[in-house]
């Protein structure tokens, strides 16, 4: 599916009196694509995610523009789903998780509570939570980190948004759960034709499913292109450094045989 979802032109964001968090970002997001935004701490990657989702606080200075397809500004929750890094913090600790997922459907899809709960149960099955009926009535602290993130994903896709933004959704999870969550996200966006913007610091992790990679470094967009191109022939030295910093199972070890 071709067609532009959003175009960022000269986007800049500054919080209060400090240095710019984002500076002069030009980026086009195609509808239905899987785009990975890679950066280290201080690169501005989270700010970019929040800016796209319309979640920036009121007292930021924004320059440049985000133009959406069809000129209609998307409604957060309905047109854009957001998955945060810390699922524990994005879920309300005093509400049952089923209610939190159902609320999205009730509010944005106009379902009544009974329909919304049934829908929520389906969603929990879709995100591969075993025993969804039990989990509907559970509280966030009763679930493991991976399960919490699955619930957060369910809530994010409940209103069938066009765009799903995931801000380091697996950085707080161990590698085994991480690979499961990444596979889940990839499957969900493929099946629903959603656009995925996946923020991460791990270029190898995203190389398995992202079609395009955008690299941020100190508030600037350093490089953007097809995954294969960026990984095989990075144009910028910083991108090359990110790639060589990856430690895999075939990277030469730093220690030899035991003494």
């Amino acid at each position, binding site marked *: 599916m071709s067609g532009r979802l959003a175009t960022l032109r000269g986007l800049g964001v500054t919080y209060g009196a400090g240095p710019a968090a984002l500076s002069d970002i030009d980026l086009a997001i195609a509808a239905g694509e899987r785009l990975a935004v890679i950066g280290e701490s201080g690169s501005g990657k989270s700010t970019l995610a929040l800016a796209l989702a319309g979640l920036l606080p009121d007292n930021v200075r924004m320059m440049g523009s985000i133009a959406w397809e069809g000129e209609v500004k998307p409604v957060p929750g309905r047109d854009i789903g957001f998955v945060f890094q810390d699922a524990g913090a994005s879920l309300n600790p005093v509400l049952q998780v089923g209610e939190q997922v159902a609320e999205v459907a009730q509010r944005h899809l106009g379902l009544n509570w009974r329909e919304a709960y049934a829908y929520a149960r389906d969603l929990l099955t879709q995100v591969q939570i075993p025993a969804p009926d039990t989990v509907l009535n559970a509280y966030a602290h009763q679930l493991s980190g991976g399960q919490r993130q699955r619930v957060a994903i369910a809530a994010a896709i409940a209103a069938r948004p066009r765009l799903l933004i995931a801000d380091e959704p697996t950085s707080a999870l161990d*590698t*085994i759960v991480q690979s499961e969550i990444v596979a889940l996200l990839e499957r969900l966006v493929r099946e629903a034709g959603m656009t995925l913007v996946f923020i991460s610091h791990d270029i*190898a992790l995203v190389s398995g499913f992202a079609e395009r990679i955008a690299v941020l470094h100190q508030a600037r967009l350093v490089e953007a292109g097809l995954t294969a191109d960026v990984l095989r022939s990075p144009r910028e030295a910083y991108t090359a*450094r990110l*790639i060589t910093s990856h430690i895999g199972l075939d990277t030469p*070890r730093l*220690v030899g045989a035991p003494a």
Partner: protein
Amino acid sequence: MTALLRTTGLSKTFSSGGRRVTALDDVSLTLEAGETLGLVGPSGSGKSTLARVLLRLTEPDAGRIDFAGTDFTALRGEALRRIRRRIQMVFQDPLAAFNPRATVADALGDPLRVHGLAGRRERPAEVARLLGRVGLAQDLAARPIHEISGGQRQRVAIARALATGPELIVLDEAVSALDVTVRGQILDLLVSLQRQDGIAYVFISHDLAVVRAVSHRIAVMDQGRIVEQGPVQSVVENPQSATARALVAAVPRLMRQVGEDRD
């Protein structure tokens, strides 16, 4: 030759809110002087509990730890404090590991002061020497910890662990919170210090690839038990336990073509 560290049958159960959680179940390991034992496992496998038990931050319910031939678990008070010179720890979050009000010099001065390694007058010189060993500039000494970068902070944490000249350092997810471009430098530093001083490491991480890069031997944990252990290459190339196989499969691979290498 007796192993530097030997644990036998360590067990630890926590009861919280009426539920009992087995954090460690009959854990037995050995570590030779100057070598690195990598400890991997999914979250909840007990790695951090084992780290805390090894450092006597938590007491095990059963089992014993022998360090350099002494029954470490039986030590108390002054005897325990004296041995602490020889076993140190580096934590995951470099910011949380320091007193929020401390400067670099304060943090490095603590172990020197506690063990009488340098009087007030010799301390600045010793702090400078430690900073040099971890590749930091001398003028960092006066800076508050919260003002320096994450990578610099972790170097200070390593310098603090080195201050007493330990034989063993436990590193609990010590590079997990660092940027990838910084991570490699810290790993290089650790390996180089090991070569210079013959320090043994227990390197804990949930990232198998990082553990493989710096360890000689690996122990794989799951739900409080050691499910597999052995030389790094054999465990990684030929994993026997389900956990080890899952960990190997979960290591992100650089796919230079989308869809390539899909197992």
